[in-house]
């Protein structure tokens, strides 16, 4: 089923359920177990005879080795096995991981190793795996393994690696740039040559790591009786793991099952099949014992993916009124040592810099530069926050250059409501044109600026300054492509006992997607949501799936579940009509029964399911399909664009460089809201993640690419003491691309935050002439700028 562009009203949305469930603030079906401590996360599962795994990781960012001596480790009582690249290979079809998202064509020599055979390329890369009777013993044994490390020069700054004569990140590569590509349209050269105003900017950003509170972990059991590999993993993509296990272990898919238990957050870090997961499964096969690996926080810092540095050099041309005529620039993206799944991050960023704006000419030259650091894949936002930082810093700069109001510059450049849907001359990864499908961006700006009393701010700022306080107001737009296709699976099944299940390849990792899908299903079936069991991330429950990323699941899984529930509903009514000898038009479905409208005469869904399961030798009514169930893989490539506008007030202490957020107002338009409470929760978390990116989170490395921030005491996640209460406003512009009219929300909150705070800090420090060009805006960096500005202002 494809996704044509059509008004939402034309989608089949039949429901005679008087009390609508979609759109209500239903409490989550996930919560009672989690609140009682009865959740089942990966490390809560245990198997008889399980062995505990620990990985020996490189202490060097770049080194060669030829020999690993495991004898002393193996001699330690309680140690069962030690595997290296050489000894784990018999369980694998090859030692190197396949490229995830293989539609992006690269030389396959860019992916990580299951266990590194001879040249480690980042600190934390795994070279050996110990299995022991306890995790303590496994970790003890790591200290007894000897490796003849021969350190090599390392690249820490992605720009350094591009210089002539720079050491290679990996000896096998021809150059440190993985790839270069261009994104753009229009005639930038002419626009820049003839524009009345032209200026340049250098911007840089760092986004940090994902840091779900539950780290990564996996448990594998080779079951000789079933001849099957059962794998439990704290993953955002159980089906991808299932395909990859089949491929890497040379097992047909029927001999592999992957289950994601309760997942304690992901934020991008688990939307990847890691070498460790394959190694754990291979080890379980080799030793014929269950194997469990649960990373500690330091391992997450060392070997969990991160999103790191991007450096921009930009030229901007405008007319006299501040309309952008052209943006042209270069982007250097730090990819880390390997490329597990293509260049989605820099691609998303480069195609999103024009954001919510009308930009007549645009060109970005992108260099994906490798470094001796842990690989990069998307963290919540996936390139869009970086793009918003660029576009919004440009808008503020235009205002400053031309002496215009910041809100007015944005208003003049925004795509107006009457141009929706607005197709950009750019394509998304699926090769489909980027279309801003619905929304009223200028109105969003008005709503928020009214709520935060933008008009009254100059007076507040002047009053504060008179008291010696530096307050500032900042603002930023952000758009986010959501609902990334091509599909997510949805099966709705009513069993003869009356159990209602929704099975999906979508992954639940805290968003409340089980509740939201139950709401979509309940809307059609006329039952309470707590009567629906949602099975997410079990490959035995549904044959196909993609998983949780890219703010995609409400759109994709939601639409599949919607159509599947509708089909089950229609089937139930058709069968009930036969059972009750009534016309379908006279029937209604409510409270788990189909009944003749206005009477007590009816049949339960369980009764209908009992008939539809079929009884040997007895005919079903003409035209009835067997089984009260339906499976839909609703197809889509066109991404609904959610948008947000944020404004905040901050106070900066010029003596310390500390930034305090006084007020934060955010408007989100994610189309129709299935559950406003859950959407608010996603926005709170997404915005606070963005505040972390804006002010706190920095993954530091020394000049030899040795990680310096490897505890949560050094790497600052946002804490309750520093976070404001965020005021959320909604607009609901339905997406025309799906039957529910929804757009994704998981990442939308994060996108505009760093530029909104940068805008506010710069505004607060106007008396010093400080210009914010980088995030995070840490106190030391800010203090340096304040002091530099003071020195310039008062020469000695």
């Amino acid at each position: 089923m494809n996704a044509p562009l059509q008004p939402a009203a034309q989608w089949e949305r039949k429901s005679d359920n008087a009390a609508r469930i979609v759109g209500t603030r239903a409490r989550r079906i996930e919560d009672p177990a989690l609140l009682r401590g009865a959740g089942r996360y990966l490390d809560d599962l245990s198997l008889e005879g399980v062995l505990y795994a620990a990985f020996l990781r490189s202490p060097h960012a770049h080194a060669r080795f030829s020999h690993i001596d495991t004898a002393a480790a193996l001699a330690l009582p309680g140690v069962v096995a030690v595997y290296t690249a050489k000894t784990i290979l018999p369980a694998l079809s090859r030692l190197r991981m396949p490229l995830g998202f293989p539609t992006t064509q690269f030389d396959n020599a860019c992916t990580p190793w299951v266990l590194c055979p001879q040249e480690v390329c980042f600190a934390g890369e795994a070279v050996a795996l110990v299995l022991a009777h306890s995790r303590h013993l496994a970790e003890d044994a790591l200290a007894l393994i000897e490796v003849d490390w021969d350190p090599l020069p390392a690249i820490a700054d992605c720009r350094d690696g591009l210089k002539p004569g720079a050491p290679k990140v990996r000896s096998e590569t021809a150059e440190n740039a993985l790839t270069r590509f261009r994104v753009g349209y229009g005639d930038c050269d002419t626009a820049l040559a003839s524009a009345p105003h032209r200026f340049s900017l250098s911007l840089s950003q760092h986004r940090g790591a994902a840091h779900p509170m539950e780290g990564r972990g996996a448990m594998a059991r080779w079951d000789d009786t079933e001849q099957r590999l059962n794998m439990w993993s704290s993953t955002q993509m159980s089906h991808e793991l299932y395909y990859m296990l089949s491929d890497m272990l040379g097992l047909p898919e029927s001999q592999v099952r992957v289950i994601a238990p309760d997942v304690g957050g992901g934020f991008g870090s688990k939307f990847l099949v890691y070498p460790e997961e394959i190694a754990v499964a291979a080890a379980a096969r080799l030793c014929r014992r269950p194997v469990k690996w649960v990373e500690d926080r330091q391992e997450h810092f060392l070997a969990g993916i991160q999103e790191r540095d991007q450096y921009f050099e930009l030229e901007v041309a405008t007319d006299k009124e501040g309309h952008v005529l052209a943006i042209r620039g270069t982007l250097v993206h730090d990819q880390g040592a390997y490329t597990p799944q293509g260049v989605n991050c820099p691609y998303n960023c480069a195609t999103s810099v024009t954001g919510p704006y009308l930009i007549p000419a645009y060109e970005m030259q992108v260099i994906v530069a490798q470094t001796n650091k842990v690989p990069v894949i998307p963290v919540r936002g996936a390139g869009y926050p970086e793009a918003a930082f660029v576009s919004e810093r440009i808008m503020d700069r235009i205002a400053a250059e031309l002496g215009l109001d910041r809100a007015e510059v944005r208003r003049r450049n925004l795509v107006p409501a009457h141009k929706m849907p607005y197709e950009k001359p750019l394509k998304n990864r699926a090769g489909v044109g980027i279309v801003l499908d619905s929304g009223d961006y200028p109105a969003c700006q008005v709503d928020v600026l009214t709520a935060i009393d933008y008009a009254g701010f100059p007076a507040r700022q002047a009053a504060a300054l008179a008291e010696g306080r530096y307050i500032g107001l900042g603002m930023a737009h952000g758009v986010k492509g959501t609902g990334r296709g091509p599909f997510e699976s949805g099966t709705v099944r009513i069993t003869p006992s009356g159990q209602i299940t929704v099975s999906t390849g979508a992954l639940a990792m805290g968003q409340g997607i089980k509740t939201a899908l139950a709401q979509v299903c309940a809307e059609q079936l006329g039952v309470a949501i707590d009567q629906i069991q949602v099975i997410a991330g079990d490959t035995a429950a549904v044959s196909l799936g993609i998983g949780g990323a890219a703010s995609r699941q409400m759109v994709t899984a939601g639409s599949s579940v919607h159509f599947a529930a509708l089909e089950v509903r229609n089937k139930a009514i058709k069968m009930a009509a036969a059972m009750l000898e009534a016309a379908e038009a006279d029937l209604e479905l409510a409270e788990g029964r189909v009944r003749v409208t206005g009477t007590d005469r009816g049949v339960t869904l369980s009764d209908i399911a009992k008939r539809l399961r079929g009884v040997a030798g007895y005919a079903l009514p003409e035209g009835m399909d067997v089984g009260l169930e339906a499976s839909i893989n609703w197809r889509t490539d066109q991404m609904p664009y959610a948008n947000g506008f944020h404004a905040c007030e901050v106070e900066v202490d010029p003596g310390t460089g500390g930034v305090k957020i006084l007020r934060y107002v955010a408007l989100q338009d994610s189309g129709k809201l299935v559950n406003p409470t859950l959407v608010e929760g996603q926005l709170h978390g997404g915005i606070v993640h963005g505040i972390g990116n804006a002010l706190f989170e920095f993954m530091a490395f020394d000049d030899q690419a040795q990680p310096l921030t490897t505890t949560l005491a050094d790497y600052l996640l946002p804490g309750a003491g520093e976070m404001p209460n965020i005021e959320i406003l909604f607009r609901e512009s339905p997406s025309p691309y799906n039957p529910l009219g929804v757009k994704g929300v998981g990442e939308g909150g994060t996108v505009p935050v760093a530029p909104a705070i940068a805008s506010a800090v710069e505004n607060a420090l106007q008396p010093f002439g400080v210009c914010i060009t980088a995030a995070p805006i840490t106190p030391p960096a800010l203090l340096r700028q304040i002091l530099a500005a003071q020195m310039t202002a008062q020469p000695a």
Partner: protein
Amino acid sequence: MSAATRSVQFTVNGQLRSVQVEPRLNLADCLRHSLGCTGTHVGCEHGVCGACTVLVDGRSARACLMLATQAEGCTIETVEGLATSAEELSVLQQSFWDLHGLQCGFCTPGVLMSLTELLRSNAAPSEAQVRDVLSGHLCRCTGYQNIVAAALEAARRMRGETPRQAGMAVSA
């Protein structure tokens, strides 16, 4: 298990438990893996994230920074002991459910324990006091806002100022 184990006895949620442990085993691992109380979670193992917080003799403690042997004779309370019954959640748990105070739920048990301690000693905490307690916990999902709201709502319910349950729509 090596010969160097110690026997330790303490009370967990009202039940006396005896267990043989290695001296290096921390209380979080002991609760989770020796006693099967997996509701207490481990997020950083270096005392920052607060996921493993339990109450030891009524005081909140990082179970990852305490050895199991140090719990000898202590009264330990964990998340599994909070609910009033199999049917009924505690007022604090119920407020978390009603106000969407949790998302992935991994940090939640530790947060509930710290807030339980707070609400026992302070029936009417201010938002600042709640945030001060929460500064010992990291949550990546919620931005803390609904956790704060749920804690303040629980205090109001315990004082009888609002109904015990919000009675929000769960069903059709």
